[in-house]
């Protein structure tokens, strides 16, 4: 059974087809770099995989199950464009809320554990609105990882991160890879993504341009993929 199965998915915005017959499978433990130019449909596809948007046609299954099943959502961690934490709440309060929603036995302990792992334990009672950008981003990373998801969906995760947040995220992704977690990561940072990825999915204006194993050729020359499979 595949970890993630995208089965002939179409998505329209009005009459405009944002995704056209996207079809691929991701095996357990794969790390997929989801590539494509701006507006290609990467974020739309990730939102559909995360269950935040319904496809017009086709379906997505995670571990063979429907996306909107609660047990399926428990397996998925998402780090999107927004940090998805509340400005008026403290770092600890934010993580406790999400730990509680993900059914952690002891939300306070889980929250504290992740504050320590992301180096925010000293400011645990500080309101997020008073945090620097880097601290907010580390909190967002903690929020996405705190329930130990088996499938990680990351939408341009390194964009606008500071050095420390990048280090935290890279460390967590490395651990997730070693633990056999499945990762789907959309990005424009080709070299970094290809170094981490085991597979590549390329979207061209809503079409699936390429889906396959990441090769040494791609690592040696990241633009090779766009030259051979990218839009004309």
């Amino acid at each position, binding site marked *: 059974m595949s970890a993630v199965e995208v089965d002939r998915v179409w998505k329209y915005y009005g009459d405009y087809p944002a995704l056209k017959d996207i079809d691929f499978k991701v095996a357990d433990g794969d790390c997929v770099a989801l590539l494509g130019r701006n507006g290609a449909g990467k974020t739309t596809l990730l939102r559909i995989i995360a269950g935040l*948007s*319904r496809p017009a046609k086709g379906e997505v299954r995670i571990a063979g199950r429907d996306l909107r099943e*609660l047990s399926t959502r428990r397996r998925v961690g998402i780090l999107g464009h927004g*940090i998805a934490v*509340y400005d*008026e709440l403290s770092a600890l309060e934010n993580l406790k809320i999400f730990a509680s929603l*993900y059914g952690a036995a002891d939300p306070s302990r889980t929250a504290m554990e992740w504050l320590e792992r992301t180096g925010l334990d000293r400011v645990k009672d500080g309101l997020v609105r008073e945090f620097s950008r880097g601290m907010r981003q580390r909190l967002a990373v903690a*929020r996405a990882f705190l329930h130990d998801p088996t499938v990680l969906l990351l939408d341009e995760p390194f964009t606008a991160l500071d050095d420390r947040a990048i280090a935290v995220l890279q460390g967590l992704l490395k651990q997730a890879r070693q633990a056999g977690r499945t990762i789907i990561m959309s990005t424009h940072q080709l070299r970094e993504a290809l170094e981490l990825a085991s597979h590549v999915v390329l979207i061209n204006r809503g079409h699936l341009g390429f889906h396959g194993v990441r090769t040494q050729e791609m690592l040696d020359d990241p633009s090779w993929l766009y030259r051979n499979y990218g839009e004309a």
Partner: protein
Amino acid sequence: MHYLRAVATIALKDLRSEFRSKEAINASLSFAMVVLLLLSFAFDPSSEQAREFSGGLLWLVFAFAGTLILNRSFARELGNDCLDALLASPLPSWALYVGKCISNWLLLMALELACLPVFGIFYSIDWTVRFDGLLLVIGLATWALTVIGTMFSALTVNLRLRELMLPILVYPMMIPALLGAIQLTTDLLAGRPLSADNMLWLRLLVGFDVIYTALAVALVDTVLIG
């Protein structure tokens, strides 16, 4: 048990956010006070006629000021894309909705109870005479406003003109509940008790609450995810 905890988590989160920012409660309370004051200039507060439409005046204020609170309900999730994180979590949409309804109901009740003494002073009405009945009617009608308002707050959350759209959608839907609330409030403020004469309006309020709560709970996932 997990679902109850989830509902409580959402309700407490919204209340805590609101108490820290005071965005909605300050705006709605000031608005309610200003409208109460202005209406007291428009009508002779000591006249018998004013007493006869006191329920209407009160609910006009509650409904207008209430939408300021309801508007913020889902809009506060837009900052930092928090709504996405909630919808991606194993939190059923209905639990998110019910949690928000509970926090909205508590905020609206606080607003309305704060308005009552001011209303009593401006309109020379002793609102304490049938306070238990009045509390029941306000509670039921406020739940009606809450379920409809929270649902449409979810529906309009991504619209640029949501502040305008929410009242346009909510008030027509609220007409049956508002009619009941106005009738019962007027009776109670005039010192008439809840009895067989006005029981139909009370039943209407209860029925409205039950039907619209069930409908909203059934439809909220479609509204939020599409």
